């Protein structure tokens, strides 16, 4: 084996090095893409869970105005809101246990905005040590049947999640 053999050996080594580099790049890249994909699926599923809660709250008969129809603006009865807040205030109560099945790790607040202001928390899982909070505000009408007034307000659904 002379000079030619040395050149061939150099070529083979170069080819092997290039293949190894490409393999390493491919593995690193694949790892990154699959990790970000898993994270994105996880975060999307958490977001969808909060959306589901946000869609459920204004449709609950426990909160809805009695004359609400499907095509109308979301309307909540102020006195039903107060009653639900009282019922779920105690986290050991049966009512809290019942709503925990629907609302899970979330906090739901009804905010009266105009013409008067006031907040009522109707459910709170009280998971303060979680890092991530997803917030969804939904505009609603809040009806007070005693004074016969309609207020503008928001339902604020906050979902607590790790990560």
């Amino acid at each position, binding site marked *: 084996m002379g000079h030619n053999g040395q050149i061939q050996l150099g*070529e083979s080594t170069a*080819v092997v090095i*290039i293949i190894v580099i*490409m393999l390493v*790049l491919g593995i690193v*890249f694949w790892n*990154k*893409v699959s990790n*970000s994909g898993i994270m*994105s699926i996880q975060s*999307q599923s958490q*977001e*969808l869970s*909060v*959306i589901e809660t*946000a869609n459920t709250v204004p449709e609950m008969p426990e909160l809805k105005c009695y004359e609400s129809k499907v095509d109308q*603006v*979301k309307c909540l009865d102020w006195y039903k809101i107060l009653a639900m807040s009282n019922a779920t205030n105690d986290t050991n109560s049966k009512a809290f246990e019942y709503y925990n099945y629907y609302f899970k790790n979330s906090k739901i607040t009804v905010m009266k*905005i*105009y*013409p008067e202001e006031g907040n009522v928390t109707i459910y709170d899982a009280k998971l303060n040590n979680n890092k991530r909070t*997803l*917030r*969804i*505000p*939904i*505009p*609603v*009408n809040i009806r007070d049947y005693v004074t016969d*007034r*309609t*207020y*503008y307000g*928001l339902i604020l659904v906050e979902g607590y999640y790790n990560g």
Partner: protein
Amino acid sequence: MHPKDKRRGQIEMFGLAFIIVLISIGFFIFVSFKSQQKPVSPQKEFTNNKLANDFVLSMLDVNIAECPEFSVKDLIIDCARDSRLNCGGSINSCEIVNRSIYIMLNKTFMVRNMAFRMYSEHLYASGRELVNITYLNCTAYSVQGQSGMAIISLYPAPGNVYLNMNLCYQ
């Protein structure tokens, strides 16, 4: 094989390998850029959709602070027709509508730093459209996000008033 042909064959192989390496690097770069593009968050899309749509519809039924016997819709109709109602002394319906809408917008969108543009059509006061509120430079030429619209009939007078709410992407 002639040594000259062998040398040429080697150069061709290197050329081919070089092209393959270039294509692979290009592919890596393309897929990396693609994977970095964040998909639209379902939560953000849902929230913006709800806020834009439900805001214009739900504020119409709200009773006004200055004259609780009337709703925003009643005062819009009055403002569009002949502006005869006076609430809280000398303030006319057009002024009160504008003020009430601004308060609700402030406490819904401005506190959340959301760029929006709310405007009316066919609701004139002092020769110009009554409602034309923009926040964070959201104009008709900005990148438009979700939108909502309410149509208010002026019956028995002819015509409709349109209230439009557009969110902008910043």
